[in-house]
């Protein structure tokens, strides 16, 4: 966690664009929340022409985060992510609807640890994340 799922039309984005969006999302999320970079997952799901995905048609940004952040932080995060997505995809931000849903951190185990609540990350958690990143 976090996990951002980007619904995109088939063949809409090149590999370079997808990677640029993934990097931008990582920068934005970590800049906003202080989370370790290695915890930010971004997945692109293509929808063939004439078909729909679970949120309808076209672009959609579906984020899943740990619960516990203020509504203001969440809205700013979604806005910043959408702006970056739109810039790289070369579409209007209004054409990328989205949402961020939340679940308790304690419902997820990542890197061998149950995730801490936002603001309760101890030094051992950051150390483990850094070690994982260094091992890549």
């Amino acid at each position, binding site marked *: 966690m976090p996990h951002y799922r980007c619904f995109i039309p088939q063949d809409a984005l090149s*590999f370079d664009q*997808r*990677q640029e969006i993934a990097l931008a999302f990582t920068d934005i999320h970590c800049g906003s929340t202080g989370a370790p*970079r290695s915890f930010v997952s971004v997945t692109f799901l293509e929808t063939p022409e004439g078909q729909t995905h679970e949120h309808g048609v076209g672009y959609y940004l579906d984020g899943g985060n740990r619960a516990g952040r203020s509504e203001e932080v969440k809205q700013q995060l979604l806005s910043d992510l959408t702006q970056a997505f739109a810039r790289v995809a070369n579409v209007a931000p209004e054409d990328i609807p989205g949402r961020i849903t939340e679940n308790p951190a304690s419902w997820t185990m990542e890197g061998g640890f149950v995730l801490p609540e936002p603001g309760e990350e101890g030094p051992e958690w950051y150390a483990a994340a850094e070690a994982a*990143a260094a091992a890549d």
Partner: protein
Amino acid sequence: MITFNCTIQEGIVPEDLRPRLASELARISTGFVGGNPDEVSVNWIEIPHGFGFRGGRLSTTSAVRGEIPPGLQQETRVELMQSIQDMWMDLTGCTTDELVVSARDRRDG
């Protein structure tokens, strides 16, 4: 009803291993929350190479997201996630850093 959505990166989890993984997910989860293993649903979502990233780099991470009946004690939930993690690492050979396991309360309606 217990459901697992397993998101895996292309080439990371062999197709012939998936029935065993699904069977183990059913066995382990019903062992903690009850129910019939035959009624556990396991869905596979394979992300093509170049479409999954972690930390801005290509991902090798598998995400095993379970939805379980609400109300499980946190201590038991952790034991469930730990058991799934141990099983998955044992069968696939992945490391702890290549696996995300969640056990979320099912939202009805």
